[in-house]
């Protein structure tokens, strides 16, 4: 089932499993899902004790949005590890040549093809995206929003910048590497620093909870934005040459 993985371009597309096996697999999964459905319906809806617990502790969490309270206070450890997951992926897809660490993070290029409409549009759009991202980050304390939404939006700005062709990013630069880890580093630092006041890692003093969460989120936003742009850069590939040539031939008969 996992022994023959076929990739897109291979001409000899390996056949999927034999029909008999497929049928058996489908039957087994259908039976399992049916059992699960029956069990779930039989159990019915449940009142969770955590609903009241979250509501009653919301005031102590430093934020008004219960989801943010869970993510960055009650279960902040999960979020810390989640930032570590993002760092792993960033490292895994990072371009391998480390000799470039002397090259600057953002370098200005002369684009091969200029699109004046896109450039003019970006002049308006980019500042607006940055401001909106800041707003999303700030509003996360009370309404849906927060570091991931803000980071994703900011990454969008970075990708647009990249597509305009005037800039290129080098993620092996020291500044870029700092951006990649700043989220995790600030999270760890805050988590460790609060031990001085409360004696327990990640237990914010109540009066400071709101501001500490904001600090963590700002750092996380930067890291998330950087990592998402890095992912875009790493996955950006030229169209398969064969098709590309075919396209050109078709265009110029």
């Amino acid at each position, binding site marked *: 089932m996992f022994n023959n993985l076929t990739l897109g*371009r291979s001409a000899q597309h390996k056949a999927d499993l034999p029909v008999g096996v497929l049928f058996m697999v489908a039957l087994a999964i259908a039976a399992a*899902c049916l059992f699960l*459905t029956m069990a779930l319906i039989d159990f019915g809806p449940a009142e969770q004790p955590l*609903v009241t617990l979250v509501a009653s502790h919301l005031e102590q969490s430093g934020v008004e949005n219960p989801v943010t309270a869970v993510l960055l206070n009650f279960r902040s450890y999960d979020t810390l590890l989640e930032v570590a997951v993002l760092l*792993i992926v960033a490292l895994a897809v990072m371009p391998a040549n480390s000799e470039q660490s002397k090259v600057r993070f953002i370098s200005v290029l002369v684009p091969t093809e200029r699109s004046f409409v896109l450039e003019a549009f970006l002049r308006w759009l980019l500042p607006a995206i940055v401001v909106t991202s800041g707003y999303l980050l700030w509003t996360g304390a009370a309404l849906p929003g927060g570091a991931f939404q803000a980071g994703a939006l900011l990454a969008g700005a970075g990708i647009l910048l990249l597509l305009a062709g005037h800039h290129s990013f080098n993620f092996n630069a020291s500044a870029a590497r700092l951006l990649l880890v700043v989220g995790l580093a600030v999270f760890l630092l805050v988590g460790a620093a609060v031990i001085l006041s409360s004696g327990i890692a990640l237990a914010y003093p109540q009066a400071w909870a709101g501001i500490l969460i904001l600090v963590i989120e700002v750092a996380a936003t930067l890291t998330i934005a950087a990592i998402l742009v890095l992912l875009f850069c790493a996955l950006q590939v030229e169209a398969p040459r064969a098709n590309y040539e075919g396209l050109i031939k078709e265009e110029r008969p």
Partner: protein
Amino acid sequence: MTQAMLYAVFGIVLFGVGLFGALAIAHVMKKLLAINICGVGVFMVFIANASSGVAADYVPHAMVLTGIVVAVAGTAMALSLVVRINTLEQQEEDA
């Protein structure tokens, strides 16, 4: 059957469909899509169960947000591997 229950059941169906796709299809990109469908099914079960009580439960919301980020991370990593393998294959063909 309540509305929440209906969502949960469809979550399980999506999980099953994704699972079947991940096992049955040989093509990597489709396999990856199937795994993502599978994940969406799991998230739907989480959310549907969270709303089955009188008041909404926020803990599963937070868990699903974490889960989505992890799923994005996994998908990105798989795609980057596919791209690298593809590049190597192309080089082999050229050579």
